[in-house]
């Protein structure tokens, strides 16, 4: 797996580092964040989970480790259609979930009234080895899938091996090169669609900013930059280019974390503006408002919800 990353950048000898003003101890680099969370800060600011309709979540802890959750959702759901206009059908469902959270083992299950079942397992076998599994079952044929990940965390690297149904295999590796920079690569092979791909990623992180870049052979080039302007405010911007379908999208957003609320807003080059507000009404009671306006497609989505516990 180490051979996927081009040998040049990852094996820079310690003596030739250009950061001569600080003595970086190359034997003690911090562990990088996992490969799939590379864009974590940018995603948190720029992709709030906008929803349409009413959402109500209630989580009740029965024990220190075990909790149940009830969730109701009512609102229009989009159906993918061939024509240019979006088709929305009003749906409503109730979701029951159970969570068991232990320092070493985490089990989460959710079942919906339309027959779908979600299950997630995260098991820390040892300090360094973690097994994660994720499964989604549904009534419709050929719509169920499951994935198992094996993560190994080394001193300053992380590697992951992934297997899914429909013969999906993937592997990724990320290594800390200096105190701020980490580089990684991934490869995947999808048996059913006979596709394979390889990708590289880099992440530069300081106290005040995070810059990431990712290139993949599926045609995606994604760059993002997040700047922490103060301890309450951070601004993020993101650029995504697909060199196969010649699709470009860029977006700019802000994230305000205040004491009583958290407000995220973003505007897109596709003419889409979205905002997501989580307001703390009381201890354990959160009020959520979500708005998304798409000027090009003239699609307006507004939602509100309440989260208890």
């Amino acid at each position, binding site marked *: 797996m180490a051979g996927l990353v081009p040998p040049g950048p990852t094996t820079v000898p310690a003596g030739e580092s250009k950061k001569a003003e600080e003595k970086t101890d190359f034997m003690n680099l911090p562990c990088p964040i996992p490969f799939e969370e590379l864009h974590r800060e940018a995603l948190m600011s720029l992709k709030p989970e906008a929803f349409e309709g009413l959402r109500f979540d209630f989580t009740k802890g029965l024990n220190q480790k075990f909790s149940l959750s009830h969730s109701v959702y009512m609102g229009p759901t989009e159906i993918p259609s061939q024509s240019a206009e979006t088709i929305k059908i009003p749906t409503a469902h109730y979701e029951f979930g159970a969570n068991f959270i232990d320092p070493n083992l985490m089990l989460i299950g959710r079942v919906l009234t339309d027959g779908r079942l979600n299950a997630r397992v995260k098991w820390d076998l040892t300090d360094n080895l973690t097994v994660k599994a994720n499964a989604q079952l549904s009534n419709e044929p050929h719509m169920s899938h499951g994935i198992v990940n094996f993560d190994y965390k080394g001193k300053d690297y992380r590697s992951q091996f992934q297997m899914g149904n429909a013969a999906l295999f993937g592997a990724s590796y990320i290594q800390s090169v200096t105190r701020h920079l980490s580089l990684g690569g991934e490869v995947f092979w999808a048996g059913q669609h006979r596709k394979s791909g390889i990708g590289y990623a880099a992440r530069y992180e300081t106290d005040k900013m995070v810059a990431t870049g990712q290139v993949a052979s599926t045609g995606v080039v994604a760059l993002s930059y997040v700047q922490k302007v103060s301890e309450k405010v951070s601004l993020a911007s993101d650029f995504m280019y697909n060199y196969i379908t010649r699709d470009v999208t860029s977006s700019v957003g802000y994230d305000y974390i205040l004491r009583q*609320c958290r407000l995220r807003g973003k505007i897109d080059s596709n003419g889409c503006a979205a905002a997501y507000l989580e307001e703390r009404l009381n201890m354990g009671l959160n009020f959520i408002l979500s708005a998304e306006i798409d000027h090009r497609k003239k699609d307006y989505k507004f939602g509100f919800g309440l989260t208890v516990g």
Partner: protein
Amino acid sequence: MAAQPRRGGISLPERRSASKPDSSIIARITSSPIVSRGKQAACDAAFVSKKLLRSTGKAAWIAGTTFLILVVPLIIEMDREQQFTELELQQASLLGAPPTAPAHP
């Protein structure tokens, strides 16, 4: 041509040309090139101003709704935060003054 008499007795009345000095004033004014140019210019101006109004209206709508979604909640929340901070400051100064008062959480 009008001056020559026709044989046969019937003769057509003379045709008037456009620049004859004895046509009416109004007809002369309305058929002059200045007036026709002016009419064309007025039509163009009306067309352009209608288009401008429509596109300004569209731009105003897009700017207005985007401002409403992105900026108005921000202003409201920042104002509330400021009020909350002021209230805390007030409470802290109120309760912090007597030395025997217990620290308020």
